[in-house]
């Protein structure tokens, strides 16, 4: 019973079934909105079809990549892989072992579809032929009376290597999941960060690691300079100075990495410095506000009991009497600010840098217009193991599929009074293409 189960679990049919089921699960995950990945869409969908979503939730289809079904399939996949590797190892060992027992009669040996007999030129002896085969990267055993040659003898090891890389990827992946910290933090030019957990944005809530500690980075933001050409963001330069005084430049595709943590640039905003003064010119309040206004949506801030709604135009222009931006380049940055008091609009107007908006005897002055950035902070361990797995997978797949084995057996014999090289050959994967290769090989060896 146990042996029967083991046989089933280690069969390649089972492997293919598992891969098909995993593929199906992944495809379902594309169509059913996933709770973790598409939170907003999921919540909207839940509002519209509560019973359907509840049903799919119960089946685990809305958290499909971590559902018990998927985890069971992965477990079975790795169990199957382990059993297959365990069973294949003795076969691989015997295939890569060089032994004189592999020398066989080329005329009668089975399993070698390519057979031929070549008359030998007078000046060519058996040792020269073997030497020429070795030059063609064949490992040869025996002599002219009977030899066995193999090219890419160790190729079957690549099978093990490729499949073992899956375990490294699994291990690296598991370590990265369990040690993962994820959080978002908004930092404006001039701000410092010492790794304080309370500084991370409350929404989305930071994900704490199951094992290990949150990031312990410490730096200050020296400058933020976005680059935009013809409406296309072409880069951003965020200069950070760490606790040792070393400067690091963050750009898109270039996060700040420290202590297994990456600070990835995610979002840009404007952090204007506003000062509110009364009619006598006395300063009432001043503050930098991190406004999320670069998507042409207004954002709000409050000062001394007034609420301000700010719309930002990076390249302000008045088009047909309407406020607009010529481009997303910061050529003529301008705020349009409307002021409210207890929900009632009392004033509005355009405010450029160093400009002023006057209302109800107050003056709102825009003193500076630096930027702020949102960093996606992720701490993970195990990435070196994961990347090693990737590298080994690539090496394994190239080695196994391109440098496949070719085997030949041969002997120099007299046939009807003519000295001939009698050979038989076989190749992994290809029969017809290998026949061409063998014909060319022996043509070259014999100087034809």
């Amino acid at each position, binding site marked *: 019973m146990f042996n029967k189960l083991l046989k089933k679990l280690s069969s390649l049919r089972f492997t293919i079934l598992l891969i098909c089921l995993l593929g199906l699960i*992944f495809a379902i995950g594309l169509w059913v909105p996933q709770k973790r990945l598409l939170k907003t869409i999921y919540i909207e969908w839940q509002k519209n079809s509560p019973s359907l979503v509840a049903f799919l939730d119960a089946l685990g289809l809305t958290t499909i990549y971590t559902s018990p079904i998927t985890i069971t399939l992965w477990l079975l996949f790795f169990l199957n892989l382990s059993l297959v590797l365990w069973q294949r190892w003795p076969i691989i060992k015997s295939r890569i072992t060089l032994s004189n027992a592999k020398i066989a009669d080329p005329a009668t040996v089975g399993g070698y579809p390519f057979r031929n007999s070549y008359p030998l030129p007078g000046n060519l002896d058996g040792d020269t032929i073997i030497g020429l085969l070795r030059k063609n990267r064949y490992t040869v055993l025996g002599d002219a009376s009977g030899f066995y040659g193999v090219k890419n003898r160790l190729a079957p090891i690549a099978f093990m290597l490729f499949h073992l890389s899956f375990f490294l990827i699994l291990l690296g992946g598991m370590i990265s999941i369990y040690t993962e910290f994820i959080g978002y933090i908004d930092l404006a030019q001039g701000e410092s960060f010492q790794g304080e957990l309370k500084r991370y944005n409350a929404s989305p809530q930071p994900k704490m690691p199951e094992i290990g500690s949150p990031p312990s980075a410490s730096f200050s933001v020296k400058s933020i300079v976005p680059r935009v050409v*013809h409406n296309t963001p072409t880069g951003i330069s965020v200069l950070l100075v760490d606790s040792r005084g070393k400067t690091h430049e963050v*750009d*898109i595709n270039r*996060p700040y990495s420290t202590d297994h943590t990456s600070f990835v640039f995610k979002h840009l905003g404007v952090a204007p410095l506003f000062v509110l003064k009364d009619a006598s010119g006395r300063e009432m309040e001043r503050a930098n506000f991190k406004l999320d206004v670069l998507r042409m949506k207004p954002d709000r801030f409050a000062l001394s009991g007034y609420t301000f709604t700010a719309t930002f135009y990076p390249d302000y222009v008045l088009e047909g009497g309407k406020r607009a931006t010529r481009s997303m380049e910061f050529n003529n940055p301008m705020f349009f600010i409307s002021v409210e008091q207890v929900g009632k609009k009392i004033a509005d107007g355009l405010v450029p840098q160093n400009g002023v908006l006057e209302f109800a005897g107050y003056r709102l002055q825009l003193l500076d217009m630096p930027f702020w950035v949102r960093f996606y902070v992720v701490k993970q361990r195990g990435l070196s193991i994961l990347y090693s797995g990737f590298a080994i997978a*690539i090496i394994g797949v190239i080695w196994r599929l391109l440098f496949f084995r070719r085997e030949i057996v041969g002997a120099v014999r007299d046939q009807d009074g003519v000295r001939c090289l009698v050979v038989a050959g076989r190749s992994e*994967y290809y029969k017809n293409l290998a026949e061409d290769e063998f014909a060319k090989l022996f043509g070259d060896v014999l100087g034809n």
Partner: protein
Amino acid sequence: MVFWEMVFYLVAMVVYALAGGGLIYSFVFKNPRVVPKVTLLVAFGFMAQTIAIVARFNAIGHLPWSGHYEYALMGGWFIIAGTLFVGWQNKQLQCLAAGTVPLVLIMLGYGYMQNPALTPMAASLKTVWLYIHVYFAWLSFGAYSLAMAAGVVFLLKQKSEASAEPNPAYERFPSLGRLDELIFRYVVFGFITDTIMITAGGIWAKDLWGNYWAWDPVETWSLISWLTYGITIHLRVTFGWREKRLAWLAVAALSTVIICFFGVNLVVNTSLHVFQVR
């Protein structure tokens, strides 16, 4: 689109359309002598497409790697380059154009309807990983397309040989045994480059988005596609799936790649792989 790019893009499309017609003619009217002439036509179209790429490169300062239009332009170039290369190496394989030229024609037509506007390279694409990731993506798509073309030719030739009056047009093509091995060889090449593409994508994603894998729709489809071709290799090597079954697999499996490149963004708008990147 700059003027000369548009001119040569359209020239390439017209020439590929003529070549596709010529190939259909050679099959239907059993006239194999047309195939070498049609191959010359394909080469002419390829030159026009290359000039279109050069004109665009001249205008934007980088190779066309992003957006559906640029994907069609550059991807189609890789597929035709592969077709001409194998046809040049082995005259019998010129017939593969029967599968790849119509595919590229559809891609170019689709690309033209998308977003051919000239845009500076987005910041997210300014990395060496773009070239590795996209280059290997196109190599794999090209190889899988050739496998599909070889599969189509195999199925047609097999059907012809089984009939009472075999079509002489197929005599120029490789034997069924060789076609069968070629399908597998192209699948293997595609699988290797696909593996490199996914790996490079994972490493790039870590720097760009912070995670090497995020179950993004395009990522997920590329995994499905990789698994599909992995199964194809296992079925061939371990279960001996050859000839007709392998040919059908090569034809059907290409759909996963097409969905990955062009289909996912049509049905979901949540992918981080915004091919219409700006």
